[in-house]
């Protein structure tokens, strides 16, 4: 498990990061968290009611990040409560289901809402879950390389699929990928390229994960931990001021430019999970 003993990491600075998971119902938010926190997976998990609060440590070479995770319910009726959870959050996981195209649309809405309403410095990761249901895992090119916060921008600047990374090309990419992957047994409905292009455009971290197999789950959290700017980490309680769910906005941290900030993200260092 990730949670190395606090004593061992004693000299390292430790800080709390408030992280919120958002996304349509049944995309696997709770399963991702359960995989990350407990390294466990439960088939047919029942829907979350309200929100669950969990914590998990993530050890980076230079510091320890203690994630305070809000795993929210995806149902429409809980949407009005979401601001309570993302207010003051330093990081957000916006999750969609790669086998359900509509869930990406919903994820895009969440991203837009976060960009509009959440703390300006919030680190957002777009996560396509259930990659185990896709036929050919090698299609998820970015996810296999997605070991750090740097992976995203590396990939996009490397230009392997960067050409498609414009909004006009999204539709084409979708069709193309669907055709390629339309072989038997593939439930994928959202092409990696499409989601990746969107993530690049919006400056989001991007991963395709499988909570079931554990693929990339730890990497997502490590990447987020790396992407959190040092400036927003102040002491063990973080800037979030966890005495309230909400409270005042955090104004100090500027919005993180991930493309520019990748050097600050440090070397790749996965969580130990």
């Amino acid at each position, binding site marked *: 498990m990730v*949670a190395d003993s606090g004593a061992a990491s004693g000299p390292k600075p430790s800080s709390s990061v408030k992280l919120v998971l958002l996304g349509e*119902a049944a995309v696997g938010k*709770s399963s991702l968290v*359960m995989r990350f*926190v*407990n390294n*466990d997976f*439960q088939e047919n*998990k*029942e*829907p*979350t*009611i*309200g*929100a*669950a*609060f*969990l*914590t*998990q440590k993530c050890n980076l070479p230079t510091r320890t990040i203690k994630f305070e995770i809000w*795993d929210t*319910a*995806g*149902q*429409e*009726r*809980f949407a009005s*409560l979401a601001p*309570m959870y993302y207010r003051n959050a330093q990081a957000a996981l916006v999750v969609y289901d790669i086998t359900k195209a509509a869930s990406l649309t919903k994820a895009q809405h969440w991203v837009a809402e976060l960009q509009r309403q959440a703390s300006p410095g919030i680190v957002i990761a777009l996560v396509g879950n259930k990659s185990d249901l896709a036929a050919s895992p090698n299609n998820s090119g970015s996810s296999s390389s997605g070991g750090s916060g740097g992976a995203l921008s590396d990939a996009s600047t490397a230009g392997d699929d960067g050409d498609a990374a414009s909004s006009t090309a999204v539709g084409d990419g979708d069709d193309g990928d669907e055709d390629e992957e339309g072989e038997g047994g593939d439930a994928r409905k959202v092409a990696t390229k499409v989601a990746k292009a969107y993530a690049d455009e919006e400056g989001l971290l991007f991963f395709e994960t499988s909570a079931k197999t554990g693929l990339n789950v730890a990497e997502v959290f490590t990447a987020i931990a790396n992407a959190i700017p040092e400036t927003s980490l102040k002491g063990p309680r973080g800037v979030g001021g*966890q*005495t*309230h*769910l*909400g409270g005042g906005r955090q104004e100090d941290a500027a919005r993180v430019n991930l493309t520019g900030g990748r050097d600050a993200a440090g070397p790749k260092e996965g969580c130990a999970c």
Partner: protein
Amino acid sequence: MDGSVEPQTPVSLGNSPANSANGVPEQDNSIDKKDFGSHMTNEEQGRAQSTSTGEEQPSREGTPPPLPPRPKNLQLLDGRPQTSGSSKPSRPALQSKATTQLSFADTQSYSDESKDTSSSDASKQKIGPNRSGSEADDSASVKSYVPTLEVGGDTESLLGEVLTGHDKTILKSLGRPFDSTSGRSERMFPDDPEFEIAFEHEFDEVEEMKADGSNEEAVMNHWRSKLKHFLILSSAGKPIYSRHGDDQLITNYIGVVQTIISFYQGANDVLRGFTAGEVRFVVMSKGPLNLVAITRLGESDSQLRSQLDALYMQILSTLTLPSMEKMFSNRPSYDLRRPLQGTEMLLSALADGFTRGSPSTLLSALECLKLRKSHRQAINNALLKTRSQNLLYGLIVASGKLVSVVRPKKHSLHPGDLHLIFNMLFEAGSVKAGGGENWIPLCLPGFNNTGYLYMYVSFLNLENLSEQVEERPSSSAAAQDEVAILLISANKEGFFELRQMRDDLVEQLQKNGSIDLIRTAVKKGRPSCTDIVPGSPIRHFLYKSRGNVQFTMPSFEPFFATALDRRRLINLYNTLHTHMHARPTHLKVHHSTSTTNISLAWITPLFELYCVAPSPTSRAALAQTANKIIQWVRREEERVFIIGGAVF
């Protein structure tokens, strides 16, 4: 004598109007018979028809007025019109039960004996009607009009069970050699393979209908074979919830039910329920919703209504009343499944609880963890000491039993609300399986159905308290031993405040040793009957304290270890409860005897007691034990019940 609180001679009490209405002369007999016709005939009576027919009369007192005869029935009845009214309740069994006949080797011979030479597939169902045949007629006609008015439903729905149960008892006694008395004392209930099989598959998922409809018949049969259904639909006829079957499967049924309901609504009449064969339908219209319970389990209408009420409250708990009404007032054809998305499991958990049988729902009462008064006091004090500013209710719950409550002076807790909470936490499992701590917006309709409260939930790992914050408890392990702390507040953003209170509370409880006491009490479980009354023949009892709205009972083990045996026990309690609460009777004491068990129900203004023993037990012994149970509860009152609780 009827009103006496003192448990002197419960046996001689209890004179139901039904008896007097029929002029059944013998008091003793009537007490025996009136209630539990299904099991009361002993083996001899079962065989010697002539003697039993007279006895049967009271059991069919509740016969509903004959429905307009259907051609199908007439045909089956083969020119015995006088039985049409009473035989109906067992009729539908024909379709689904024909096969089971094979399992009763003696059925045929019995039928022959009884000169029932009609078609063999109907023979089993006819045994009952045949026997009591014409003798039952006058009683049926006298009594039948009463039920249709107000009380009717309760008695009526019972009948299905009475008749079929009756047949089965007789069949069983025939199919079994006489000398099996030793075996009988072991078993509280007659064998009923049909029910056993049905119950075993009751919780199986109904398969999805294939696109080409190739498995349609199998799916439909499976769906129909369920013992219990719940349907919820909007008054515009949109499906909202069904316990079994997907949309495709239930659409037709929803349509039919909606048509029937709106037919009566159109006539400015309220349809409350109807019986089709042995299946009882109960309809409850609540504002924009129609809720329908369909059962073969022989529950009474009022019991089914309280189940429907719980489902309705669950929906309100998700949506609140005003917002649900708004949804429908804007658009009567609104699809309520959208806002309810994700709560199907809560409704299904409730429904399954009712199907398994829940004493808590039957009695509309709560069960508490048995603790010494001083120990509970220490927990109460810890709750009061650590109470945070915005707390409304604070509860400690151990495996579905209440340990302690802290509440404002002016607000008590509504048992229905607590039932919803317990269902969410301990039955549906999503909160528990999710692990961590939870922050759940919910409406407690009994408290206030117009707004949301926010509930902080934390499950404690009793064995290792320090672990629970960091780690999700493994979903499967030690479900029984789990203790949850529930802190409810009206403050939407109160999570961290209540979380702090939880930390303080756990620290307090650890310091004063309460955690250990709770752990011990949870591990110990419920006492057994013989712990409570040494040497008692009683196998199980329910005691409800009416003032406290709480109940206590002994452990189900060892006599009711399986879900099936528990369901049968609950069936028995259901029947007793129905008799005690059927208006306008207001029985005080009620005895019933069957081939396999003897039971007693006893109600005073202070308590309700239901207890059962195997059949060799004498009534006197049962009554004596009942008295001892009462004494025990009085002695232990402050241990088995929470009286007052921590109030601020």
